[in-house]
Every structure is written in structure tokens, then in C-alpha cells.
């Protein structure tokens, strides 16, 4: 099983995402922004960071990158794609997911251990979660406020496209507490929090059982492996 991890100039969490793929039991394949070839990967992760310096708008320049043209085409054909933080912003700028992400309501970058509720466990990236499960995933962003017009929000709610919602604290002023979305097919998922930072005990978020022991993020990657094996 090969899972591609895209590196744009300014991508930061590509090495973390590669490690997460490895810990989940698949082979990470680095993909370069200027390359249109996806090297026959079975799924793609768009990791976090500040692609192209977040200049113009977060994710906007990355959405124009050669590699994204192939990813958009393949995603529309069903290739599983996970966008994390800046990757979520790229998905939104690529119109693979609706809406937009703006500066956090309080104007500050925020880094915290965030509790999320799993609102949908039918996607390629969430099928190993229980519906309604609360998971702890690190969140770190400056522009994570999710917004969409009233009609889009209604559709997201009505068609059950909201995949994760913030619990207890809405850290960035997102509408309807939206932390992550899926597309209608469920092969494309984007979220602001960082599952790749909760995959290895000792380096994850603090949990009630033990410090830095949180590995809830690993299930994103085992989910996609499961869905590919059973495809």
C-alpha cells in the first residue's frame, strides 16, 4: 500500500505525515509540488504547513501547483485524499471541498490539544472511528476559522458532510463548530487539526491516562488502509 505525501515549498508537516503513514503500516511516497506524476499511489495526504508562505491566501498558490491538477482529477475519480490544516485550505481553494478558512477569531495563532467529535465514520479516512466518538488531536493554526454561506452550511448539515466538530472549545471561530469536512463520496476529507501529531505514544497530546500518550490520529491512516484493502 503506497500513500503519497505532497511537499510544497513551505510545507512543514510532511515528514510527520510520512511517519504516520509508516506507523499505520503503509509505505509513504514523497510527492513534489512541481511533479504531475503521482507514482501510482493509492491515496494522498496534503500535509500542514505554510505552502508558498501562505501568500495571497492560505492554500491558494498550492491549489495551482502541477501536482494538484493531477490530484484534483484523480480525487474526482475516487482517489482518497486527506487534507490536514494547510492541506484542508488547499482542498478548499481547489474546490474539492466547499467554503473557506479565515483568520482565527481572536487574531492569534493557537496551538492546543483539541477534542473533536466524529460526526461521520463512513469516509475513507474515518471508518475506524465510532460515530460520536470523542478524540483528542493537536490543533495549530492561525487561519482556521471555517466559513461558508448560509446555503452551503445548510447543505453540509443536511447531507451529513460535516465530519468533525470541535467539542468544549471552538478555537478559531468556525461556523457550526466545523473542524473537518468530507465530499459527497467520502474519499476526500479535510480538517484543521493534525492527526499526524497524535500517532506515536510519547509525542502526542496529553491524555487522562498518561502524558503525551494520545494516538487517536493513527486511525485516520488505518482507516484509509482498511478502505483500500476492502475496496
Amino acid at each position, binding site marked *: 500500500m503506497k500513500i503519497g505525501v505532497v511537499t510544497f515549498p513551505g510545507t512543514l508537516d510532511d515528514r510527520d505525515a510520512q511517519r504516520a503513514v509508516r506507523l499505520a503500516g503503509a509505505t509513504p511516497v514523497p510527492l513534489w509540488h512541481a511533479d504531475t506524476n503521482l507514482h501510482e499511489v493509492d491515496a494522498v495526504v496534503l500535509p500542514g504547513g505554510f505552502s508558498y508562505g501562505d501568500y495571497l491566501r492560505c492554500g491558494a498558490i498550492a491549489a495551482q501547483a502541477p501536482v494538484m491538477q493531477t490530484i484534483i482529477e484523480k480525487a474526482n475519480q475516487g482517489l482518497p485524499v486527506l487534507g490536514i490544516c494547510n492541506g484542508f485550505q488547499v482542498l478548499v481553494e481547489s474546490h474539492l471541498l466547499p467554503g473557506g478558512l479565515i483568520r482565527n477569531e481572536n487574531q492569534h495563532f493557537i496551538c492546543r490539544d483539541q477534542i473533536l467529535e466524529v460526526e461521520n465514520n463512513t469516509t475513507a479516512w474515518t471508518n475506524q472511528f465510532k460515530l460520536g466518538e470523542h478524540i483528542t488531536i493537536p490543533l495549530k493554526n492561525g487561519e482556521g476559522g471555517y*466559513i461558508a454561506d448560509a446555503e452551503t452550511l445548510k447543505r453540509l448539515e443536511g447531507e451529513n458532510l460535516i465530519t468533525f466538530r470541535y467539542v468544549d472549545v471552538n478555537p478559531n471561530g468556525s461556523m457550526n463548530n466545523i473542524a473537518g469536512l468530507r465530499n459527497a463520496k467520502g474519499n476526500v476529507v479535510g480538517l484543521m487539526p493534525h492527526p499526524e501529531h497524535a500517532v506515536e505514544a510519547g509525542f502526542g497530546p496529553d491524555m487522562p491516562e498518561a502524558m503525551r500518550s494520545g494516538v487517536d490520529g493513527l486511525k485516520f491512516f488505518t482507516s484509509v488502509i482498511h478502505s483500500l484493502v476492502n475496496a
Partner: protein
Amino acid sequence: MPKIIVEVMPKADLLDPQGKAVANSLNRTGHSEITAVRIGKRIELHYDNTPTEQQLEEAKQIAANFLSNGVIEDVVAVSVEA
């Protein structure tokens, strides 16, 4: 240098956290007559020669498709500055 100026603003009905923060600060410092602030972008496209009508049209396309995100922003003006 001849330029085309593109002006982009956050959509009027959306929250502009930056503008809100500046407005609050202005109100705190005694400028209560300012009722709101919105912050947008001015983007300059530079040319060697005065842009043609066709180049202006192209710039409008670029402004709509790349320089702004229609979900959250509006292009409010695209104009030539000689």
C-alpha cells in the same frame, strides 16, 4: 511603470476578524465616530507598456479566478494606472 490595480475585499456579509480588531482598537483610542473597519488587499500587476484592453480583460479573469476566492472575497475594482 504601467500597472493594473486589483482591489480585493472580504465579502461584505462575512466576518473580517482583522477589520474588527482594528475597529475595536480605534474605538478604544477615542475614535468612536468610526463605526466599522474592513481590510482588503491591493494587488499591482506591473507591465512594460500600458496594458491593452485585452490584457485588462485577462487581468479581470486572473483577479476572479486566482487573486481572489469567491467564497470569501469580492473583487471590487480592476483598473489601469498608467
